[in-house]
């Protein structure tokens, strides 16, 4: 009897409900389970509780931005290994560098292609 592996859990955090829906829809269609948060504090809390396979974080969120959320994930041994993809409207190279310095594994600029996001999630998970 063959056992199917559980779908990898992806945590998505964004304060824009349209983006949350778009990302959740695409990732669920790609075979992932998705948990959502609407701010950075909730994202960090959920990451600690659920230990997702990957987190997609918006950079500009209320309470705690995606960069600081990434740093907190990296500084906590329980969440330090969770890959992070940052999703942001900040498009300058310096912003991208800041994201990588914070510990992000990849960076996607808004507006974004949902299928490209899904492909990147797959690529980052594949590298782990």
């Amino acid at each position: 009897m063959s056992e199917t592996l559980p779908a990898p859990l992806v945590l998505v955090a964004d304060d824009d409900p349209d983006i949350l829906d778009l990302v959740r829809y695409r990732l669920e269609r790609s075979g992932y389970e998705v948990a959502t948060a609407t701010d950075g504090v909730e994202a960090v809390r959920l990451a600690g509780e659920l230990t997702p396979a990957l987190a997609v974080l918006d950079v500009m969120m209320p309470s705690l931005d995606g960069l600081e959320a990434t740093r907190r994930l990296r500084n906590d041994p329980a969440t330090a290994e969770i890959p992070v993809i940052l999703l942001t409207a900040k498009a300058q190279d310096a912003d991208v560098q800041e994201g990588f310095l914070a510990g992000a594994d990849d960076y996607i600029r808004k507006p974004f292609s949902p299928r490209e996001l899904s492909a990147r999630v797959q690529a980052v998970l594949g590298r782990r």
Partner: protein
Amino acid sequence: MLEALGIGALVLAVLSVLFLVALVLRRTSLARAERRRNELEARLRPLALALVDGDEVEERELSAEERAILAEAIGRLSRSVSGEARERIGEYFAGTEAYTAEVGALRDHRAWRRATAAYRLGDMGCPEAVPAILRRLDDRDPDARAAAARSLGRLAAPEAAEPLVHTLVSGTVPRAIAFRALLDIGPGTLPVLRTLVHDPDQDVRASAIELLGWLGDASDDSAVIEGVGDPAAEVRARAAGALGRLASADGADVLTRALDDRIYFVRLHAARALGQVGEHAAIPALVRQAREDRFEAARAAAEALARIDPDALLAAADEPGAGPHLHEAADLLRV
């Protein structure tokens, strides 16, 4: 007399009651409409997401109200997506009743309706709407012009590049909106910008050069370097800024010479750009500027030194007569 006053008071009381009843009914009706709309939107949202995502969806007949709400939901989603998802949105709307209505509304006599139409057409993502939206850049209403500029950016219409640069210069559209629209169009604007850097109008040259700094590539270095020698100070300053953003090593010499420009804001931008380029040969000139120049330019030179060579900055700050800007930058560096 008393009787007349009594009747008047009674009439007023009746009118007040009628007015209150009308208000309550109106409020109830609006709340019901809003609730119905939210329910419909929640029901149609999966369909909107599936259409944007490119999934096969079951064809079913929608009422006019449902079509309008679906169009609005898809239009809103289109603000967040790019690539094939956005193309699909354009294909979805092409030739639909909603699209035709908005194109028609671009000529509405009400300014707010023209502005709304220009805005919605940007969300609909149909490139065939570009010529009609372009005409709204000359609308007499500022909101309609701004909405048109924003939508031309969303539609990434290269033919809008030149008119948008002119709105940027004339100020008929807020600078942030016109600039953002040009950035949204992206490299499609480059052929026009490369021509406009030679425009007789110095404001057009300045804007074109600034945009080349954001959108251009290494092949644009020479045009931007030429801009640092422009007779107009505003053009020289923007060209210096653009060279910094392009991180053009070829522009380092001309930027170093621009530290001696007679206009302080050109010197300021040249110093910042040298910091971005990381030009070590400019360190002595930057130290001098940080010590001797007026406030903004001196501070920019000290900050550039911190970026290029922190040790050189600390050494310069320890020299006698280093001045407040070198000290401040050195303190910040130590922090």
